[in-house]
């Protein structure tokens, strides 16, 4: 198994945001995590990445059989876990320098950036003054540059135009075809129609994973009855 999350509970600023969540996924699989605003999707990813402030109070996380609890974010990244941040904050580093350093770290070629049309942004401070779409593309490109075994993508499809949506879809497909596991958080589900296949979807409501299954079935259920009905077990 690539990733195994067992009964994970996560606290942020003393408040439990994720409650006893379970999730398993293998190499080359695409898993979609759906949920309303504030349901704990981002916290779930950040806790797996080991970001400070996201405290695991219960449960364990395994990556390729190795327990991650206690490892720092950079140690997890070097194992092959990458997090695409939802809204990266502006950095005091030029995008070109950041990209070069990441490609050196992971032995990857900067050619992979070619698809993302970032030329006009490369000599600017990373993410400073970028439009929503530019920031998403740049952050996704940097994530791919890490050549991850597990790519956790936090809402890569929010606030971007149709062309960019197709680009994001193609990039996710390529990641999975290359053997990476993709854990995709989506608020709108907009990118799903551009994915060749989704292994499984999970719905998280108020920190609990309340349903897992086929993505089309779950999306349809959410559209018909809403997340709360799923949480109450009224559907499925």
């Amino acid at each position, binding site marked *: 198994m690539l990733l195994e999350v067992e009964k994970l509970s996560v606290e942020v600023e003393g408040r439990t945001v994720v409650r006893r969540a379970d999730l398993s996924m293998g190499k080359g699989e695409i898993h979609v995590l759906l949920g309303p605003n504030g349901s704990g999707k981002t916290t779930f990813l950040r806790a797996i*990445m080991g*970001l*400070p402030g996201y405290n695991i109070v219960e449960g364990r996380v395994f990556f390729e059989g190795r327990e991650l609890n206690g490892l*720092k*974010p*950079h140690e997890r*990244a*070097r194992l092959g876990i*990458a*997090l695409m*941040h939802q809204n*990266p*904050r502006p*950095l*005091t*580093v*030029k995008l070109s*320098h*950041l990209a070069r*350093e*990441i490609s050196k*770290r*992971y032995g990857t070629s900067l050619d992979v950036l070619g698809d993302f049309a970032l030329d006009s942004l490369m000599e600017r*401070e990373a993410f400073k003054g970028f439009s929503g779409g530019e920031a998403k593309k740049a952050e996704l490109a*940097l994530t791919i540059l*890490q050549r991850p075994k597990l790519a956790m993508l936090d809402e890569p499809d929010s606030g971007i135009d149709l062309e960019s949506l197709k680009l994001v879809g193609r990039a996710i497909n390529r990641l999975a075809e290359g053997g990476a596991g993709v854990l995709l958080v989506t608020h709108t589900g907009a990118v799903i129609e551009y994915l060749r296949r989704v292994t499984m979807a999970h719905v998280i409501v108020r920190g609990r994973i309340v349903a897992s299954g086929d993505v089309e079935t779950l999306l349809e259920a959410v559209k018909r009855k809403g997340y709360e009905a799923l949480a109450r077990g009224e559907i499925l």
Partner: protein
Amino acid sequence: MSFLEKAINAGSTALYLQRNYEIVRQLLAKGLAERGFILEPLSKAVEREWVRKLLWTALPQREVGLSGAFVYVPPGVSLRAPVSICFVVSEGVQEVHNVLVVGEGSELVVLSTCTSAGEGTMHGGYTEIFLEKGAKLDCVIIHSWTTKTQVIAETGVVVGEKASFNDVYISLKSPHALKESTRITVRKGGSALASTLYLAGPGSSTLETVVMLEGEGASVEVNSKIVATSGSFVSNPITIEAAAPNTRGHVECRGLQLSSDSVIVTIPALRSARGGSRLTHEAAIGKISEEELAYLMTKGFSEEEATSMLVRGFLELGLKSVPEPLKPQVTSILDLMARFATA
């Protein structure tokens, strides 16, 4: 083949290396002397009356001998390959007086390096720069000192009518005591851009810049970036004075504190003695952002590596105009500064 000879073959126009009071190397590319270019010890240059008359006109007079370099570019000569000047102090006191004259309409690129190789040394560097009408000088100054060195560096620059002065001062390793003072006078239609990147280690540093916008339409931009590590105290007063109409000046000073036992004092001051000038300043002191650190750690960089990247970015983003021929050297120096900052 020595390092310096390799450098001149690699494209430097001329080289001058002085260790203590001994001139170790003095090389000039072929054909330059025939075009009227002069690189020689100041002690020889003062045999010309016009050179003698220039001494201590851009700086207050000091009791300093004639050890140092003299560079002269005749009118209408463009030298875009860098002239390299290097001073090393390895024992006792080294006091040098340098004079650079760039003739009307000429262009020059200079890489100046000062360093100490011993402990308990003292370097006093006094440099006068004269840019005649329409001249252009790009200057990168790199300092790297051993800890137990005292440094006094005074630079006086006269930017002539419609001339352009671009100066990048980089200090890789600071001494335990430094007083650096730059005075720039900008005449009618002239422009100056002065950038400082200073990595401060234990000790006290004063970096003072005073710019006088003396002629109508003169302009200046002063950018200063200071990174303060443990035990450092840095005072950075920068003054722009507008004494003529239609002048423009901007000061930007930023400090990055990597340690709670460091002190940065930024003192931007503007003085307008004539209407019609536009003077502005910005100043900020801060520390490394925890959020930026956390982001970089998710990309696989340790806390130390991430800090180093952010320091490099802070410094690099302050550089507005590095002369093209010197970009590789400056890039290497930035990498070193970032590494030293977290060492």
